[in-house]
């Protein structure tokens, strides 16, 4: 049987950072098993920016963040196996000596204290025996079924992550008139994304009295585009026999019950649900890892170790996190400790007081409605609430000077990174597309054969120009191969200048 020191399940931000952490702690063979055909996990479909502030002190898009995390994992010397779907983990008892690692008699071949991981791939069933495991299996979305929305079951009801994948990766539009239930971050980000790609988002509906996601997303995803949010409201009925025709929206009382008489119909052809994430721990369960019954999260100690010695957990499968950066931080810690567990060397596991840690992480960015005359500075994860006093013309609440400049810009002419996708023709041999990688009309692109490439502007552009810039890029097709970071097009910044548009991932 194949052997590894540390085996990592999942190559999202948590798993990739765990690989880096494990190699840094001296693990010899570190293997990541990923079920998708490429690493990066959900980052690949998160074409928006806002990643990397903690890890890289930069505003990165999801795919750019993934590229960095992949590179780090690769450079560390970890092995990545994509297309491998882990189906179970069998733990062969507690380690026979010490806190883990080799058997007490020094033998290496025994399986006592090891975990045997089985994965299915197109090559067959692979079994790897590992001294330590890091579970970085992420999460899944809460569904319409789980929250039991009354009404019919027409086509056109999706979860936000599914819509994100269809729109940003598969080049498929779910609808033209969209209602979003839930003001979690994914829901708000999709409200903006769908608006920019030409859909009309007619309502974001939130059960709670305040938006559930980050204030910065309320400002930058909803307010920026004039998208209406209805708090203390819910979708009380789904209407439409074959295709979604409308939803019934109702107001809720303080106990969360529908107030009769407040029902109103909203016509729509897509309902997007952003109603929560659930840690995905089916693999953990096969290993006997204890879960919290209410939240489905893995219970770990402050070293990220579960109740099963040698099995560690991090990221969204451990508990739902607001930012990918924190998932990576946690993954790195879990990977380090897994490697320490796996080694016979006398190295201490790293410890962090998780309560402090979680507290520190739960508040860096404010949630709910933004304060009036206040902007949430998005230059760093602190998310300072910078106030502007119109009478005195002075700013307050900023943690550093940059906050004032940010707020001033926000007030007068807010600037945003443009983040979107453009079509790439996979067939570079097609003469109808210029091979320079620069813009070209879309007509030449045969339907169904293009792939989408996430792109961003090199610098922030005026918010006013953003919709037209996204529209401009809708009709652009470029030819592969494309390197991450290369220039694929230019757009107008609204002040007569052309701004470079960069590829956020490699293609071809």
């Amino acid at each position: 049987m194949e052997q590894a020191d540390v085996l990592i399940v999942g190559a999202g931000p948590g798993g990739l950072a765990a690989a880096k952490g494990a190699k840094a702690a001296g693990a010899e063979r570190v293997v990541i098993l990923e079920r998708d055909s490429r690493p990066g996990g959900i980052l690949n479909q998160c074409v928006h920016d806002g990643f990397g502030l903690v890890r890289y002190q930069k505003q990165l898009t999801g795919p750019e963040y993934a590229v960095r995390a992949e590179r780090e994992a690769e450079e560390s010397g970890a092995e990545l196996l994509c297309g491998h779907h882990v189906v179970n983990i069998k733990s062969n008892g507690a380690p026979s000596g010490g806190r883990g690692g080799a058997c007490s008699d020094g033998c290496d071949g025994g399986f006592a204290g090891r975990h045997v991981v089985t994965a299915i791939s197109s090559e067959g069933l692979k079994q790897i025996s590992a001294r330590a495991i890091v579970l970085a299996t992420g999460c899944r979305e809460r569904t319409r079924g789980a929250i039991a929305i009354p009404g019919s079951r027409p086509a056109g009801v999706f979860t936000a992550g599914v819509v994100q994948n269809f729109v940003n990766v598969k080049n498929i539009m779910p609808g033209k008139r969209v209602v979003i239930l839930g003001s979690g971050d994914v829901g708000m980000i999709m409200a903006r994304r769908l608006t920019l790609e030409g859909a009309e988002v007619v309502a974001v509906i939130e059960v709670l009295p305040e938006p559930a996601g980050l204030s910065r997303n309320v400002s930058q995803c909803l307010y920026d585009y004039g998208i209406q949010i209805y708090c203390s409201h819910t979708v009380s009925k789904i209407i439409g026999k074959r295709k979604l025709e409308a939803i019934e929206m109702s107001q809720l009382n303080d106990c969360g019950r529908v107030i009769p008489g407040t029902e109103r119909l909203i016509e729509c052809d897509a309902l997007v649900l952003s109603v929560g994430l659930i840690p995905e721990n089916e693999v953990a369960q096969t290993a006997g890892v204890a879960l919290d019954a209410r939240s489905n999260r893995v219970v770990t100690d402050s070293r990220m170790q579960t109740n099963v010695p040698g099995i560690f957990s991090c990221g969204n499968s451990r508990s739902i996190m607001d930012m990918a950066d924190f998932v990576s931080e946690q993954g790195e810690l879990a990977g380090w400790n897994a490697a320490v567990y796996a080694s016979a060397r006398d190295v201490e596991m790293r410890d962090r007081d998780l309560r402090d840690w979680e507290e520190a992480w739960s508040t860096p960015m404010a949630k709910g409605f933004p304060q009036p005359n206040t902007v949430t500075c998005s230059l760093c994860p602190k998310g300072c609430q910078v106030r502007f006093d119109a009478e005195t013309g002075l700013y307050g609440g900023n943690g550093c000077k940059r906050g004032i400049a940010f707020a001033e810009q926000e007030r007068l002419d807010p600037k945003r990174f443009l983040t979107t996708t453009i079509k790439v023709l996979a067939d570079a041999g097609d003469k109808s597309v210029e091979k320079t990688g620069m813009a070209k009309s879309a007509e030449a692109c045969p339907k169904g054969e293009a792939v989408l490439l996430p792109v961003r502007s090199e610098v922030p552009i005026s918010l006013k120009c953003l919709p037209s810039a996204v529209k401009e890029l809708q009709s652009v097709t470029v030819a592969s191969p494309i390197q991450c970071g290369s220039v694929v097009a230019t757009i107008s910044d609204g002040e007569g200048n052309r701004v470079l548009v960069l590829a956020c991932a490699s293609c071809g």
Partner: protein
Amino acid sequence: MAFAAGGACAPAADLRLHRKLLMYENDVIIIGAGGIGCAVARELSRYELNITVLEKECDVAGGISGRNSAVVHAGFNNRPGSLMAKLCVRGNQGFETICRQLDVPYQKTGKLLVAFDEEDLEILRGIIAQGEANGCRGLHLVDQAELQRLMPGVGGIGGMLSSETAVFDPFLYCIALAENALQNGARFVFNSEVVGIDRASSDARFTVQTADGRQYRASYLINCAGLYSDRIAEMAGIHDYRIYPCRGEYFILDKIADELLPLPVYPAPKAGIGGLGVHLTPTTAGNIIIGPSAEYIDDRTDLACTAEVMEQLFAEAKALLPALDRRQIIGSYAGLRPKLTLPKEGGYKDFVIQEESSCPGLINLIGIESPGLTASVPIAEMVADIIAKQKPLHEKSNFVEGRKRPPRLRDLDETQQAALIAEDPEYGEIICRCQKVSKREIRNAIENPLGARSISAIKYRAWATTGRCNGGYCLTRIVDMLVREYGMKPEEITYRSAGSELFSGRVK
């Protein structure tokens, strides 16, 4: 459309024929491809007959047959001497054999009726007497201790066990009957709603007109139209019937039947209720179903779930099994019973299975509500008998009685899985994570012999999208296959029949 169907994909080829001729000659036309229509088609396909099944939806089991409790009833609920009682008992006794022949998931679980008081026990004694008069086997009362042994955690002071009751997969049952009928020469034409029926007095043959303008002629017309069987009868000039749709709502719970529910558990039936009371049923896939409610409604297409009933359903189910938790809910659905009894009468009327004397050649099957699926094969045999009395039926020498379903990865042990993947690597690509469905299984479903083309057709054949993530993982992957490998445009992809388009088109 580029669905390259393997094997006997007769319908696609025949459809072209139909267009050319616009008139198609048959011996028998079956209207409706639910469980009854499919069973009749399969039964009649034993004989030298030219058979066409006309179905308004895009697949089999699109109506009542796909929306029920999926139970093979024993036959104790119906009045002695009724067709319902006779055909249900006979159907129950042959069901295991037909499921083995056609490779349909079937589990003889038995079933419990729970008594909460003395009055209930008295009702159960009456049911046993009635069942025995009907010819049911394996009915007996159980005391509280036995009840607890059979079904730990259930409330109640005692109950009744029916050992011959079973659960099965109603979708795969209808699909198997239809595929076997197809294999034996019957023709299935989907998306063909019957809009007119003429009977020529000259040759006593029927001309059936469908909504798309085609005409089909036959000597026998078998009305298996379920909820619309009264309307089909009316088109043929029989105005004696009226179907009253009675809605039943259900919840689907996660795959927890193994732990919580070894067999279907019903409350002792109360007099005057149209259904069997809210009950708990394990499915062959390991889920638990709660339901159904019983509510007469006017609209035969209204399959909505309602807030009030949903609340009540769960409360009643929890009374039966206190271990249930709302977090286990993964979906809900509703079905309609095609009742012949007026709302104010309640209860049930016997099946109508007869050739109409005023319209020779028209065989009406009306009011086939529960236990219609259990009785489907005996019902089909009755239809064959009616025809055989007038016209000698010659058995085909090459009738194929059995039919094999393509293998499913999740049914196999690891050695078998490895062998299957070695044979076809697509068996090693997991598309649906909740149900462990491989790409090859999705492909088999897409290329189904009946040529049904929708997400639901894939869902019911491959069981993808049915898990706790409601398709959050696999829907994007299935759609990607349909678009890239089968050349479908996103806007052509439907959830069910035409009109249930999932997407508005491309993003760019």
